[in-house]
């Protein structure tokens, strides 16, 4: 069932394409043991728990960031997806960190960590290190700290990945001059089920063949991996 709101948004996205060209230059995807970046399968690690899988990706990608091991699963997932997206593609945020936004969403919020925290608290151990991750936007905080990103950031909770709404919101930020680049996507994790999809949207680069930042192209990217 398509809501009125959804239809309104599709209508207005077309309008905004005319005002400014925003393109999607890179993406990363992590799910089912596979790490993909720009159509290239970087790692395929099967038969592991998320703990083991994330540790393997961390090591095989040559990341050196000791604080990684303190993060909760959702933050590890988002952190890895962002590292693959940015470092793998030599994307440099430092030019103007206040002009880079991070707009993410998921279904389960921080429920995976909420449960872990509660299991411990139930036994009389309220762990501060676990509690600090009982909010979905901490993953944005970790990504921002790692890459020095300081621009607008927001986290939405929805039943499914509402691509038209997210694309629309990000395009609006570009069109009103709030940002010049943006990490958008979906970072979802609960128990051993995980799905991270991040993409990098930026003002059109002359002479490039990158797809336009539209719901259609994001839907295509998301479903192609």
């Amino acid at each position: 069932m398509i809501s009125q709101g959804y239809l309104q948004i599709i209508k207005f996205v077309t309008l905004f394409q005319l005002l400014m060209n925003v393109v999607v230059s890179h993406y990363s995807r992590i799910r089912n043991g596979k790490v993909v970046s720009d159509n290239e399968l970087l790692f395929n690690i099967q038969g592991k728990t998320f703990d083991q899988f994330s540790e393997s990706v961390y090591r095989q990608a040559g990341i050196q960031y000791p604080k990684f091991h303190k993060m909760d699963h959702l933050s590890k997932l988002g952190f890895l997806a962002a590292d693959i997206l940015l470092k793998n593609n030599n994307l440099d945020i430092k030019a103007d960190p206040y002009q880079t936004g991070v707009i993410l969403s998921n279904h389960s919020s921080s429920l995976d960590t909420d449960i872990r925290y509660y299991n411990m608290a139930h036994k009389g151990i309220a762990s501060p290190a676990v509690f600090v991750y009982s909010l979905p936007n901490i993953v944005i905080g970790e990504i921002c700290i790692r890459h020095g990103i300081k621009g607008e950031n927001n986290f939405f909770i929805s039943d499914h990945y509402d691509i038209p709404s997210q694309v629309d919101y990000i395009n609006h930020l570009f069109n009103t001059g709030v940002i010049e680049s943006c990490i958008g996507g979906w970072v979802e994790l609960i128990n051993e089920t995980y799905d991270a999809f991040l993409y990098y949207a930026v003002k059109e680069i002359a002479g490039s063949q990158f797809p336009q930042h539209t719901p259609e192209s994001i839907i295509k990217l998301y479903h192609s991996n």
Partner: protein
Amino acid sequence: MTELKENLKRQIIEQLNLKDIKPEEIGDDQPLFVEGLGLDSIDALELIVLLQQHYGIKLAKAEDGPMVFKSVNTIADYILAHKQ
């Protein structure tokens, strides 16, 4: 005392998820915060939980933390002085 310190080092590594560090790499007198292991304020709170969980000692004031958790030596001293 040596056994206590060795246990402490393993517990600190486990409680604070310091996966890249081995117990023998932590000096008894090595500063744990700022330089040294580079621990932060949340780690300090976790050490308070560690004291309670493993040694039954409750550190009531967070302000005492920097003094008590300065190094493995100071933690061990505190435990011996306060263990019930």
